[in-house]
């Protein structure tokens, strides 16, 4: 009885509130709207991408020629460390969270996320976290310089930046955990009637699984850095042999988090590609069920491979053997996904708009990254690859033409839905080709450098490594500059452009609830749940 009253009351309020969002600064500080928050995450990640990218350019500039030309070796180490921390936690993860915020409610027919205020808090926590991290660069002793992996004992030699960096990590981790909780309860509770789990878009599935991974492992990372903090300030000896502790314990704890973390970065990318390839092939995703099971298998297996990051640490033979075999195994479900995307294209009707270009580049280049990963899983061979540029090449292939290209594909796919305008296709094509070519010039030679014997995390190198380093650095500047075009395209699109229809893409009919709402998507969508058949 009172329930009905409240319901009627709320409906009346809905009409009143249709005067739109608040105005000015306060809108962005206090919004609980998933579209606003998604936009903030995406803009934040783009800004971080450029800051992290600038640090990478400092690195590649120093490595352009042998000899030290530009920076102190200590500062160089800070650049590599903070570049990675920013790219992993400030660029890639927030970008995928931004896409999740925008698209998950739309794709499941929900009016918003289940916990909108928590959503707002998660975002602003990130801003706080990275303000601290960037601040840490300017304190005595300089920023953290022990690598993004923060191994002790070395990390305990960090100066005043140490507590700032640890606190930044705690804040970012809390943000991720809260976001993950929000995503799980949203997906589990707010799906439109008729949308069973096995009818959800794959982007939603990959995010559901990613969210569980986040809850399982971000606290582990928090535990590890808490122990670093107490070792440094409160005389504990978790990781100090002299006190009965073990530096290798840190590595085990870190990589127990760290390996699932890389899957946290790539699973949403898999989801995006699984949305785009079917649309532009005008054909349903091949093997939907297998794709779901493969994603779940990858997530499960990601928990039992971590020590492949530690093959040279001095593990007993049985340990090395186990982790080698489990690591090789993870190639199987990953391969299944690659085959299924290919089978989706087979006998399809393909067109090559920018989202599809980026998705196809992902398919080729992520697979190359996967192959180098398989090589690294062979433990005896890894003794030659470990801590060399071969590893650097591998993870940049899976993260840059892998995750980043998938994110860009997603932006190019959904931007017309967000803004209501088509963007400049010609410019987007140029952005694609410049990026795809330069990213290979940048990272492919790094395989050669690693095989030739060049270690990673060094600011200067012996002259036999000079040629490929120069090529790689040229690719780096090419790639970095090309991304300015991406910003220009987005801003130009937000400002205006050809009107986008509801379904935007010719192949997007019947391909998801997001293509049934107007473009731009109204501030509030699905106030009434749609019925899914």
């Amino acid at each position, binding site marked *: 009885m009172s329930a009905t009253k409240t319901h009627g009351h709320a409906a009346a*309020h809905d009409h009143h509130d249709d005067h739109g969002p608040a105005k000015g600064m306060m809108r962005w500080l206090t919004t609980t709207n998933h579209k606003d928050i998604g936009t903030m995450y995406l803009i934040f990640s783009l800004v971080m991408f450029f800051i992290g990218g600038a640090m990478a350019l400092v690195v590649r500039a120093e490595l352009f020629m042998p000899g030290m030309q530009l920076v102190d070796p200590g500062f160089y180490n800070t650049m590599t460390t903070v570049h990675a921390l920013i790219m992993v936690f400030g660029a890639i993860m927030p970008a995928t969270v931004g896409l999740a915020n925008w698209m998950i409610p739309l794709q499941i027919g929900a009016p918003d996320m289940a*916990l909108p205020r928590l959503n707002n808090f998660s975002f602003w926590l990130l801003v706080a976290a990275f303000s601290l991290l960037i601040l840490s660069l300017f304190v005595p002793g300089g920023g953290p310089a022990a690598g993004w992996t923060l191994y002790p004992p070395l990390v305990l030699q960090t100066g005043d930046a140490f507590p700032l960096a640890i606190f930044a990590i705690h804040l970012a981790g809390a943000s991720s955990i809260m976001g993950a909780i929000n995503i799980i309860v949203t997906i589990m509770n707010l799906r439109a009637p008729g949308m069973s789990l096995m009818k959800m878009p794959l982007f939603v599935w990959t995010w559901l699984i990613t969210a569980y991974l986040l*809850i399982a492992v971000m606290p582990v990372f928090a535990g590890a850095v808490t122990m670093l903090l107490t070792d440094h300030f409160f005389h504990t000896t*978790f990781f100090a042999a002299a006190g009965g502790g073990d530096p290798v314990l840190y590595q085990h704890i870190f990589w127990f988090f760290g390996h699932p973390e890389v899957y946290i970065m790539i699973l949403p990318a898999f989801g995006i590609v699984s949305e785009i390839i079917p649309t532009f092939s005008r054909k349903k995703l091949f093997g939907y069920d297998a794709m779901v099971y493969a994603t779940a298998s990858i997530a499960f297996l990601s928990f039992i491979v971590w020590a492949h990051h530690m093959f040279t640490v001095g593990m007993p033979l049985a340990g090395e053997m186990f982790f080698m075999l489990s690591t090789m195994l993870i190639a199987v479900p990953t391969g299944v996904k690659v085959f299924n995307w290919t089978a989706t294209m087979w006998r399809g009707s393909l067109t090559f708009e920018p989202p599809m270009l980026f998705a196809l580049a992902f398919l080729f280049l992520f697979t190359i990254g996967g192959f180098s990963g398989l090589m690294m899983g062979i433990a005896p061979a890894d003794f030659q690859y470990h801590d060399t540029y071969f590893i650097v090449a591998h993870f940049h292939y899976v993260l840059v033409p892998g995750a980043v290209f998938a994110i860009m594909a997603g932006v190019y796919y959904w931007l017309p839905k967000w803004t209501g305008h088509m963007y400049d296709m010609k410019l987007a094509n140029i952005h694609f080709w410049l990026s795809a070519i330069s990213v290979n010039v940048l990272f492919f030679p790094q395989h050669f450098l690693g095989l030739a014997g060049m270690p990673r995390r060094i600011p200067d190198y012996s002259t036999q490594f000079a040629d490929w380093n120069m090529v790689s650095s040229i690719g780096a500047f090419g790639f970095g500059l090309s991304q300015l075009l991406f910003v220009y395209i987005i801003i130009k699109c937000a400002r205006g452009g050809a009107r986008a229809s509801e379904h935007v893409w010719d192949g997007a009919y019947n391909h998801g609830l997001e293509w049934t709402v107007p473009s731009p998507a109204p501030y509030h969508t699905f*106030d*009434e749940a749609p019925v899914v058949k």
Partner: protein
Amino acid sequence: MAQGNQSAEQRRRIRRTAILLGVVALLIYAAFIASGMLKAQA
């Protein structure tokens, strides 16, 4: 506004799941620190 058309039951379940997941996260955090303490003693 969006929560206007959620039932009380839905809101209960959402809150319950959210708290459960948050507690799980904290327990994992505590467990790993405890593991560090146990290893340090050994």
